[in-house]
């Protein structure tokens, strides 16, 4: 029996769905979904299964794996017994590249030998399946069918698939007038930055203040040191003394900067996006490096992510380990532009950022700015305190 059926027959059921309290799924619609889910049958042929496993494992920079995967894809294209759900299930546990190979196979398989609507609905309801596979099925089921789309989305506000959740929240945000309670419910589940900012603004219009910076988990308090020299953009890989001092856990009060001794400046950002505007703080200094340090305390070890946005070249270390490095100047800045998984340890965790400004003269190349936040893998801020 397939893992898919096996999981279901062992009683794994979709979790209780969060709604905004209006209609939810109609009873008949929900019944249709459930019946379809029960009647799903899948057979695994050995050869297709091996081909799927080949696709699951593709990793970057592996030409041999690419060649094998390409051969497997060709074989699967000829496979008449291949079932779309079998391919979609294989996305669970596949590498990120492997998932796209499987998605490509699933698209073709579904076109040639479509599984029933009921089977797809069953797959979509199974929140244990791969999130990207489920969103694919969601689109197959609902593209061009607004009624079905709206029914599904009403129950999917806290769906584990970020893409489905995004769609559900976007749908819920369509009405111009939403109650404070509805907005708060949405804010609690929203993870996509633009939606969060929209929700906070709409709450603000109704007199409810939300600290946006805190909601995102932006690191708003830093000690800054600089400017150091970056003439000719040559200092990105130059280890200034502070970098080695930081690694060794000792910091001096003053360092030799570009034009004499420089001292630490305490900066606490009031910006809702946690922006630390180095251009403003350092009088539009060009061709320079500024360092920022902050210390984050957490009660216990926690796996999380550090996410930064920065329009300048930057390096970031957590507890002495280089986590992020991008020698890129003035090519856009986004919340969560660069994301890296980290593990914070119980107690104090030390974060160092090096931000380099170049000497471009164009009007659009004058920003010298960064933001950083700590959150879980879904984008929700984790509790921490800044050690002052």
């Amino acid at each position: 029996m397939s893992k898919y059926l096996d999981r279901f027959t062992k009683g794994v059921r979709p979790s209780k769905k969060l709604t905004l309290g209006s209609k939810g799924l109609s009873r008949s619609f929900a019944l249709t979904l459930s019946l379809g889910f029960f009647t799903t049958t899948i057979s695994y042929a050995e050869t297709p299964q091996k081909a799927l496993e080949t696709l699951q494992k593709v990793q970057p920079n592996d030409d041999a794996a690419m060649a094998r995967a390409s051969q497997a894809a060709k074989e699967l294209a000829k496979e008449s017994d291949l079932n779309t759900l079998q391919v979609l299930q294989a996305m669970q546990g596949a590498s990120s590249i492997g998932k796209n190979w499987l998605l490509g196979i699933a698209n073709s398989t579904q076109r040639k030998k479509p599984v029933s609507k009921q089977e797809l609905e069953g797959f979509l309801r199974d929140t244990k399946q791969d999130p990207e596979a489920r969103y694919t099925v969601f689109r197959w089921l609902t593209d061009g069918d607004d009624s079905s789309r709206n029914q599904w989305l009403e129950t999917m506000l806290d769906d584990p698939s970020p893409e489905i959740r995004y769609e559900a929240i976007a749908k819920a945000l369509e009405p111009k007038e939403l109650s404070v309670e509805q907005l708060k419910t949405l804010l609690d589940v929203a993870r996509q930055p633009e939606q969060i900012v929209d929700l906070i603004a709409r709450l603000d219009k109704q007199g409810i203040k939300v600290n946006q910076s805190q909601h995102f988990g932006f690191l708003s308090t830093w000690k800054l040191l600089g400017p150091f020299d970056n003439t000719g953009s040559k200092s990105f890989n130059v280890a200034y003394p502070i970098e080695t001092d930081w690694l060794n856990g000792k910091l001096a009060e003053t360092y030799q900067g570009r034009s004499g001794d420089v001292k630490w400046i305490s900066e606490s950002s009031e910006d809702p996006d946690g922006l630390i505007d180095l251009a403003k703080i350092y009088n539009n200094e060009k061709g320079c490096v500024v360092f920022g340090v902050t210390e984050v305390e957490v009660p216990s070890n926690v796996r999380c992510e550090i996410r930064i946005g920065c329009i300048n070249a930057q390096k970031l270390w957590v507890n002495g380990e280089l986590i992020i490095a991008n020698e890129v100047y003035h090519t856009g800045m986004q919340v969560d532009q660069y994301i890296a998984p980290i593990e914070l340890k119980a107690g104090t965790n030390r974060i160092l950022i090096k931000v380099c400004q170049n000497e471009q003269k164009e009007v659009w190349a004058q920003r010298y700015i960064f933001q950083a936040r700590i959150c879980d893998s879904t984008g929700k801020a984790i509790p921490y305190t800044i050690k002052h």
Partner: protein
Amino acid sequence: MATPSKNRHRFKKRAWLATAIALVTSFSHPIASGEDWTQFRGPDLGGAASKAKLPDTFDGESGKNIAWKVAIPGRSVGGAIVIGDQVITTTSDGMEQRRIRLLSYNKETGKQNWEQQFVSRGRPYCHPTSANAAPTPASDGSHIVAFYSSNDVACVDTSGNLLWYRSLASDFPKAGNDVGMSASPVIVDGVVVVQVECQGDSFALGMKVEDGTTVWKQDRPRKANWASPTPVKLPSGTLAVILQSSDDLVAIEPSNGKQLWSMQTGCATTPSATVSGGKLIVPSGGLTAYDLSSTGVPSELWKENKLNPNACSPLVANDRVYTINRTILVCGDAFTGKVLWQLRIPDANQIWSSPVIAGDKLLLFAMDGSCTVVSLAGEQGEIIQKNMLGDEVLGSPAISENAMYVRGAKNLWRISER
């Protein structure tokens, strides 16, 4: 008036050119049919050879000479291509345009044939004007390659079956540009060539069209670049790809990555080079023409600053070169670079879409969806019509038989007399 000596000089040039044309042509695909539009700007890099008879007037709102229109979710700023009876285009939609799609439609009816979709593994971010689906797909008639700003590459057959997929952002994690990447791929000699030039991992890559494995990789200047590789067939019969950047101009043999020649010269980073009549015409110092029939590094034929193409790629037809400098259409002599006439395109806002030529008419889309039709029949260009599509247009149109396919940001359009 031209003097006799100038005329003789010109005659010699034309005689030389006639020979060169026979030897040097823009690259045409071995499998694709003559009516196919296989890549960004088509097999002739702008449709100069197209004899298509397109309607002078069309209107998106009333449907006049709009054979069909298909709404496509998401956004695209790349052009469509035409392979056999299929029109192929891309889109990016969903959360942060992370879903990247490749779609095929019947070119007669607009009915969808098939769709493929993937999830961006690189950063999908771009300027709001652009889209993750920015590059135009490419085909050799049997393979179709889609490339996205997020540096995901997918290759399918003409039935939409996945042949291979590759995440260049996973292979080269520093590749990317959050303003958006847009260089379109080309397929030459069984190799897919992509140009990924940015401040991080900056390279050109040749991948076997059959399975996506690496044939070669060339490091490129670590600077942002949006220009596309230009395919060309050299007099020796060698197929080559021209890469331009703000630092250099190089010719690569796609089958093995061998650098045939290179020169240190600053080229524009948005419009791409074109090839015509034995000349490589490069957006550099305005516009510069090089003699491709010579061996080794090509010699410069002329350079004309007034032919600066700004954002749109230049194109050549009937011994004339055309560029768009902001809202001015400039025509030059393809032999000398001398500016022959200029024509202001009235009420045109930003123009990103590279123009195409069908017969003796040049068609130019502005970003607001207005299409100016310019007659090239006389000594001076003459605007004969301005049409409104009612869709944002940044991609270059495709022409096949007597129809033009326009990928608007939200719709795919077929413009033809029904």
